[in-house]
């Protein structure tokens, strides 16, 4: 399917990828609410999101081992920024049960591969960096509309914008993945 996607017009590809990741995220959130299905929904949702990046060359996704020290360091820095507000406000610090850790890692990696990876690449090809940054942030925010109360969507959008800007400025997806995983494990 992904190989077919790669041969379609960039506009069609971007639309299909955007619709796919939205559907997966909304389905994940709906299934997650069912008794006993939370962890399975998170893991399967993460894998389904990551699957959309299959077939896209690693360099177009921003993946690679060049400048690896810089990428790893960037991931730690992004994680620190994402956690900073919660760390400064000790009253809001949750404790994530260990059983959810694997699920948190799966969904974080899947989301980055889907939003800042495949969707960003498709939008970048269609309209360049501004469309890729703006479009991936809008779809990312919409994808979280079911799981987050409206008051939280500003913070979600700002996080998406920060991660997308890193993806653009450093042509790197490794750091957003690391930062996102750290933030999800801690929150």
């Amino acid at each position, binding site marked *: 399917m992904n190989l077919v996607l790669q041969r379609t017009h960039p506009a069609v590809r971007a639309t299909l990828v955007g619709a796919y990741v939205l559907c997966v995220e909304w389905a994940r959130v709906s299934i*997650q*609410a069912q*008794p*006993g299905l*939370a962890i399975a929904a*998170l893991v399967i949702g993460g894998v389904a999101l990551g699957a959309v990046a299959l077939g896209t060359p690693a360099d177009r996704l921003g993946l690679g081992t060049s400048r690896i*020290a*810089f990428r790893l*360091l960037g991931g*730690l*820095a992004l*994680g*620190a*920024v*994402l*956690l*900073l*507000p*919660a*760390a*400064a*406000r*000790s*009253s*809001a*610090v*949750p*404790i*994530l*049960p*260990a059983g*959810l*850790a694997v699920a*948190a890692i799966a*969904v974080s990696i899947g*989301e980055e591969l889907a939003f800042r990876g495949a969707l960003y690449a498709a939008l970048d090809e269609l309209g360049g960096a501004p469309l890729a940054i703006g479009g991936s942030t809008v779809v990312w925010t919409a994808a*979280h509309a079911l*799981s*987050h*109360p409206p*008051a*939280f969507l*500003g*913070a979600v*959008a*700002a*996080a998406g*914008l*920060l991660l997308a*800007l*890193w993806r*653009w*400025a*450093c042509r790197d997806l490794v750091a957003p993945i690391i930062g996102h995983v*750290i*933030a*999800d*494990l*801690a*929150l």
Partner: protein
Amino acid sequence: MRRLALLAAAATTYVLAAWMVAPGFYDGFGPPQPYNWTCPPAQAGANTKPGPGHVDIKVVGGISDAASAYDRDGQIVIGFLPGAFDATGKTVVSVDVTPLPTCPQPPGIQFVTNIYQITASAPLVKSSDLVLRYSTLEPAPSDIYFASDPAGPWKGLGIAQQSQPFTVVASAKQLGYFAAGYPSASPPPGTPTVGGGSQTLPIIVAVLIVLVVLAGIPLAILRRRQSRGDVEEDGDV
């Protein structure tokens, strides 16, 4: 330089946006709404007292309907099957869910939720699933406890498979007082936890910042030397 400035602006925007809502960025693992405490722990910050709930269950042909009773805050829900009550001679069964205004801590048990009293105008004759939500500020409970009187004795009902994050489920055979917790003689269940803890997260962030600064300086020097080397090599050519 422009890219760096944009990144810094985005990071600042995020911190400001996240500061306006607690905890900031999260991916929907924890309940976004804060727990409403009868007796809030020190780290809870602003708190709204929990509220009661009430439901009237219709009785048709001597059999009570299926229904759920819950408190105002959605922190406790009990689901009744059809015929869950002995409703002989009744047309309605009234169920009340009331948070206990005090917080007794019986010996050997550490409660991590409020204590709720559930009463009904007819005796319960079928087991009913009870769901308790717990706060993100407390360790996960290992049991739901039941008592006929808040002074005790408290009896563990066990918990069924976790249905949703930060909730525990048990089967209740009778109505009375319910709370989730863990044996206080043992370490809090759920350990090792990932992240969390009012002291852990600031430490994690501090370590991340120190790592970034300590590793970033030599990395920046290295990159600068490399770029100088490239310029000199280009000059030689």
